[in-house]
């Protein structure tokens, strides 16, 4: 809506979609929803190419994976076609005998295409697959160069299932893109998705006999640096890593923390050279010591800084892999959604925090549309 000055946060929750609105101060929020009530919503993705357009992947327990689009900032939603598994490409089950058809179990991540391709969308699904639409989601095509990758027999599902959960587009090289798959690792394409190669060098795997496999890494989430897309920040099962060469190699930087296990990572457009993480205890998958902790990694001076001090949000929290977002304002707002339904937000990059006085269902995903402030 032209002329509005609204920041919008979208939540994908265990029981539907929520849309939150605030002004530039980002201290008071209006909550709308749930939309698609009861629908297990793994991801909600605002489309930066089309103001007000938002996509959602809703995994209905009864009726299966569904996709929806809103053209009015999440006020009303219309069902669009979901991708369909190419059954001739179905994988063999991990246990048991013989190949069985493997329909799509869940929609995990929706990524709007580049600005130059306004109708292109990418979707990552369980089991282990990437789909592409060039007509705004009216129809979908599998990406065989990845979905039938020769290393696929070595991929194994994590606790979330065999999911493709991360899709990243290089804004400076239209033909380059990346995906993250659990537990296969990261892959890069330099020809628009036609062919792919694993990019996990430097990420160890402590749960396999071979600690340095080409694939099999349990990547949890990756983001690209907003100013330098050759730099990537990775929250892996095996810790926090940074790459400076387009994911050709990774270096673990998180060992200085008491734990660098976790699921989430975000980067803010107004803070290039930085990324935000929520470290968790490896065994319990919850925060340490009675409160939420958020850390900022800075490339210069190459260190972590805690952004929540003094237990601003008390409790034992978990986060799912899409559970953090940063907006495009300066200072950036940071939003952390928990598996117990709290949204903890800072309007000023951690100098102050609020816990929204509204308890949501378990939050799977947090995404933000900074609206006209950045257009």
């Amino acid at each position, binding site marked *: 809506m032209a002329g509005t000055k609204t920041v919008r946060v979208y939540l994908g929750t265990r029981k539907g979609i929520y849309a939150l609105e605030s002004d530039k101060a980002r201290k008071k929020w209006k909550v709308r929803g749930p939309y698609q009530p009861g629908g297990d919503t793994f991801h909600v993705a605002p489309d930066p190419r089309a103001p007000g357009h938002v996509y959602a992947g809703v995994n209905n*327990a*009864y*009726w*299966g994976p569904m996709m929806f689009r809103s053209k009015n900032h999440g006020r009303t939603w219309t*069902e669009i076609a979901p991708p369909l598994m190419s*059954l001739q490409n179905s994988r063999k089950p991990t246990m048991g005998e013989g190949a069985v*058809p493997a*329909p*799509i179990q869940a929609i995990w991540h929706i990524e709007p295409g580049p600005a130059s391709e306004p109708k292109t969308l990418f979707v990552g699904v369980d089991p282990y697959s990437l789909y592409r639409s060039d007509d705004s989601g009216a129809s979908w095509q599998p990406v065989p160069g990845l979905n039938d990758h020769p290393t696929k027999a070595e991929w194994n599902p994590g606790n979330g299932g065999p999911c493709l959960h991360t899709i990243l587009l290089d804004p400076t090289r239209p033909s380059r893109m990346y995906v993250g798959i659990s537990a296969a690792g990261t892959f890069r394409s330099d020809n628009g998705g036609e062919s792919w190669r694993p990019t996990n060098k430097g990420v160890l795997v402590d749960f396999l006999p071979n600690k340095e496999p080409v694939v099999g890494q349990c990547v949890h989430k990756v983001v690209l640096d907003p100013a330098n897309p050759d730099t990537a920040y990775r929250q892996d099962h095996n810790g926090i890593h940074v790459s400076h060469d387009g994911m050709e190699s990774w270096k673990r930087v998180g060992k200085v923390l008491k734990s660098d296990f976790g699921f989430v990572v975000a980067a803010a457009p107004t803070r290039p050279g930085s990324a935000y993480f929520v470290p968790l205890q490896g065994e319990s998958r919850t925060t340490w010591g009675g409160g939420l902790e958020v850390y900022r990694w800075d490339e210069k001076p190459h260190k972590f800084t805690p952004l929540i001090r003094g237990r601003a949000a008390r409790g034992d929290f978990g986060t799912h892999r899409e559970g953090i977002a940063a907006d495009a304002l300066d200072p950036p707002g940071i939003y952390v959604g928990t598996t117990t339904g709290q949204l903890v937000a800072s309007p000023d990059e951690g100098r102050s925090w609020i816990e929204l006085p509204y308890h949501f269902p378990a939050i799977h995903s947090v995404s933000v549309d900074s609206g006209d402030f950045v257009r």
Partner: protein
Amino acid sequence: MAAVRLDGMLRQFVPHLEVTTKAPSVEALLDELETKYPRLRLRLRDETGAVRRFVRIFVNGEEIRHLNGLETPVAGQDRVDILHSIQGG
């Protein structure tokens, strides 16, 4: 014609919850319903054609999983119920 009753939660996909059919089997009935109501496609069956895990289909009160599955015949005075499982939290 056989009488078909659809679960109330399916109202988001179909205009009527009670229909009649001359389809000779449950599979033919689902084909017919999906043709008539395209939004029902993929909601009762996945892309392999298998009935979704929490969808339950009964012919004269017997669940088709205990009859002949999708090949269970449907005839003149039969009643078909398409329901969903009770499922927690």
